[in-house]
């Protein structure tokens, strides 16, 4: 054993230099040179201010905006988390019941798409299903004084289909949808300054 101690420490030092220093720093350099926007978090800028990331859900509560899925992490981009409630958890059932009752008022008589009343694994799921967006269209249209059909058409434009028609699920990015909505109909929503130019994926940090 003792004769192996020296090579062990030499080897861990060599490997640390190679895989712990050289590798990540070279990767950082290459990533910053090749894909700067993605390497810096796919941030969305507006008037030189970061308004979020296209890959991180942010809270929307105003009826004039599309809402993301509920978040067990309170949309904290610095502490991702799921609810981790089991399928027979009473807390889970109660939470879903409450959310369904609230959402049913938006769109009476229509079953609520399941992703709108379940928390995601990360708590930061930036997307909702096309069904969940369509479900919210009447509420958003009412709040903004738009035709429901116009809002639905907007959703249709923002929907991303499966990669190569096969992989994953069709989905709608909530931040992209709400930005497009602001362009379409500058609404009297506090805090929103609609119509201002937005650079998606822009900006280095």
């Amino acid at each position, binding site marked *: 054993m003792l004769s192996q101690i020296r090579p062990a420490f030499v*080897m861990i030092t060599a490997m640390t230099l190679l895989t712990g220093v050289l590798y990540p720093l070279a990767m950082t350099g290459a990533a910053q040179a090749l894909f700067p926007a993605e390497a810096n978090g796919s941030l969305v800028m507006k008037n030189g201010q970061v*308004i979020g990331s296209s890959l991180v859900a942010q809270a929307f509560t105003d009826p004039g905006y599309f809402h993301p*899925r509920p978040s067990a992490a309170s949309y904290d981009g610095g502490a991702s988390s799921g609810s981790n409630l089991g399928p027979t958890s009473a807390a889970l059932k109660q939470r879903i019941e409450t959310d369904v009752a609230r959402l049913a008022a938006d769109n009476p008589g229509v*079953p609520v798409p399941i992703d709108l009343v379940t928390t995601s694994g990360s708590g930061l799921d930036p997307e909702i299903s096309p069904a969940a967006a369509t479900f919210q269209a009447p509420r958003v249209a009412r709040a903004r004084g738009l035709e429901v059909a116009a809002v639905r058409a907007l959703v249709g434009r923002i929907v991303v289909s499966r990669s190569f028609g096969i992989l*994953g699920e069709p989905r709608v990015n909530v931040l992209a949808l709400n930005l497009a909505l602001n362009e379409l109909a500058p609404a009297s929503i506090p805090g929103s300054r609609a119509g201002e130019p937005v650079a998606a994926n822009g900006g280095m940090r």
Partner: protein
Amino acid sequence: MASDILQFILYCVLLAALAWPLGIYLARVFSGEQTFLFPLLAPVETGIARACGVDPRTADQHWTRYALAALAFNLAGWFVLYAMLRLQGVLPFNPQGLPGLSPDLAFNTAVSFVTNTNWQAYGGETTMSYFSQMVGLGVQNFVSAGTGIAVGAAVIRGFAGRETRGVGNFWIDLVRAVLYVLLPLSILFGLFLVWQGVPQNLASYVDATTLEGAKQTIAQGPAAAQIAIKQLGTNGGGFFNANSAVPYENPTPLTNFAEMLAILLIPAAFPFMFGTMVRDMRQGAAIFAAMLVLFLGSLALTYGSEIQGNPIVAELQVDQSAGNMEGKEVRFGTGNSALWATATTAASNGSVNAMHDSFMPLGMLAPMLQMQTGEVVFGGVGSGFYGMLAFVLLTVFIAGLMVGRTPEYLGKKIEAKEVKLSVIAFLVMPLGVLVFGAMATMIPAALASVQDAGPHGLSEILYAYSSGTGNNGSAFAGFGANTPYHNTMIGIAMLLGRYVFIIPMLAIAGSLAAKKTVPASAGTFPTHTPLFVGLLVAVVLIIGGLTFFPALALGPIAEHMAMLAGQTV
């Protein structure tokens, strides 16, 4: 539903198509042949070997020496990592000013990454500095995988050897695994991930002002480089707390598919490497087939449970046609979440793209069972294959008993010594899961970590100790594992699960390497036929699975019954 099945088929076909040539490449690398990377990397290899005092020409080690070298290297790695985690507060690359870890958490985490478990009792973005991630955890991601691959190669040499004394040289195997396999694949894969949206920077966390005017902090970091190796090396430790469910770790269906392939790529290549090295590809293909059968069985159970959704939720006014979406991401849906859960627990990877704690009771049963059978369905890099070889020896032994002949495998007599050593390895899982798990149910300080009451609570304990002992690292994340008790006990379980498997398997390899080969006769039981594949599958399920059936009946199966009756707790 149809699109999910299509993705499953595509996945299996692509996996086999990539694993076959990689297996042949691995065989060449570990037989010392020159590969296309040789001109570039050979000087580095020689340089490191020389620094370690190894002469490549006369380096063949007896299995005992090989095992000692592996243990010494892992001990040194543990020591360095433990020190780094404790001293995190004074080390550089720490823009958030995160403090050093507590002794028990540092012990647990260092053991976890050295044993290729990557169990995480902490949340990445709230606990680890960039220094700890890159220079500490990242290094072990490479070298714990390298250790697994090296030992896997040594065990295969034992089976392939003809009256040889040694099983190879640990230091050279380790360097080759990192230089010729893990590093090139990680560089390519890491850049692919950045292109798709995984961050790779050293900036501090970003403060954003959202559209509604709220403040949001967004974690950053050198994630892509880490995630590439965490998947390829069946490590699985997340850069961020919610692991591969976080969009920054796994932003698109394309990254998801590629990461799932990366999880099983090297493990699935091992049977083909074996086939090449024993000069009979049919032997490797038979083991691959048995693994695939078990994999598809687990996938069917998990997917079937998840897509049906939760009957308790179905009573409400919801459209649950997408299946059980609690803890799942929209871009993956139930199909890709079930496939990932199956792949990550088949391998000893343990990264998750959906929260297993919120899976349906039978949907969580299959991942748990795959860990409890020792992760031999492809398994961890190297470790999965030598685990499966233990089952192969047992199958040959049982088949020999049935027909009344001395069991043989690849022309070598399997005798009492090899079977005894295999059984020692098999006893580790029941010890870690059932004995340690039972202790956790009786000690109040341990029970306090359980989040959900009822059978689901027992499942949380079972899952934690299965994951630890099996060196998987996935978790029922509701289980509050970061306590001195569980940090210590799961740490010990991880050590047992790693080394009480490695040492007997190297001993078997050493014993087989020294044996004469006997020519096959009419009485030899062929080990490349569908009959053998069927027997091997049955042995894995019966020996591996039945041990845990009573515990599973009280956990997931009891919860399934309660759920059908509409009961909540």
